[in-house]
């Protein structure tokens, strides 16, 4: 890190946020926008009355592109929401130890949510009647 001299009474910059975290939060926005449009359109307007029955859900997922798309959507939306929530927490000037704890909680919680979602996708795809 470059060595910058600080005037007295000014705190050193903290490393809790950086370009790449911000850029991902930013870039994931439009991705969600596109994916959610598809997600929505399909959920509500495919089939006669949306995906309101178990059978309709299964038939929706029988198109093999759908589970992949939903999987990507899950990763993007979970990371965007947790980074956004983290931003709000950063605005509240958290202590270093609290921020470290939150980082771990979000990392583990986010991973868990994604793993759970992918497991769920697998269960659904496996439930699709063959043929």
């Amino acid at each position, binding site marked *: 890190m*470059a060595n910058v001299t600080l005037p*007295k*009474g000014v*705190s050193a910059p903290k490393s809790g946020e950086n*370009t790449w975290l*911000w*850029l991902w939060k930013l870039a994931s926005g439009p991705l969600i926008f596109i994916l959610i449009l598809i997600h929505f359109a399909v959920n509500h307007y495919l089939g006669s009355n949306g995906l309101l029955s178990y059978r309709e859900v299964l038939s929706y997922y029988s198109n093999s592109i759908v589970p992949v798309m939903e999987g990507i959507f899950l990763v993007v939306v979970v990371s965007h929401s947790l980074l956004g929530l983290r931003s709000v927490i*950063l605005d509240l000037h958290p202590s270093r130890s609290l921020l470290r704890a939150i980082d771990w909680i979000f990392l583990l919680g986010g991973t868990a949510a994604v793993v759970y979602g992918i497991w769920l996708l697998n269960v659904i795809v496996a439930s699709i009647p063959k043929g």
Partner: protein
Amino acid sequence: MSNIRWKVTFQIYRAKGDGPVHFDTFFLDVDPDEYVLDGVERLWAFHDRSLCYRHACHHSTCGACGMRVNGVEKLTCITPIREVTTDGGTLRIEPLRNFPVVSDLAVDMGSLYLRMDQVHAKSVLPVTEAEIEKSPRDWSAEDQQYIRLSDCIECGLCISACPISATDADYLGPAVLAGAQQTGLSKDPALVEIVDSEDGVWRCHSAYECTAVCPSFVDPARRIMNLRRQVLGQRWQGLFNRKGAQNLAVEEVTR
């Protein structure tokens, strides 16, 4: 100016030492084209000599007289009373937020000045560099040698209006980030370590309150967006040219 007189109620925030915060009410006959600061000065001169407030230039070049007028940050020396109330109306005057109160309406803006120094914000700059992106006119070669005072008068209105500055004492704040933008990361690469941080350019969430209250043509929000671009550019280059970027930064500091 006019011969019209308005009756206006001034509600003034008062705080002395450890005493309680309260509002004092004064009734004043004013010319609606007078400035809010003129009213406050008259309160001190003729009604209550214990009133403390900051002011110096009375024409928006020093940045001392920022206050909250009816809940909105104003540079009171250039805010006509007509713009902020009506005949028979009220002016509720409070100190700027997010700075320690010295007494009554006077706040200690030391932190802002120190941070301006931290990012090497220019107090004077070439006339050609005053604009954010490009100059409104073509400067002749002769013009380019001229120097002018920077637009930012370090009045703190933006810091008071910014919702993030309200909760995060370490957030550099709009004026400071705008100062860094004007300094420029290409001229002062080491600055990237200050602004690309938890307290820096990413804390802005586009409320644009700073630009809305800025009395001095700085447009801090726009400068923050431009600074983001500068940071992104420098980090992106750093990805492909790690050593180069670091050497440049070190060189700048040791020079």
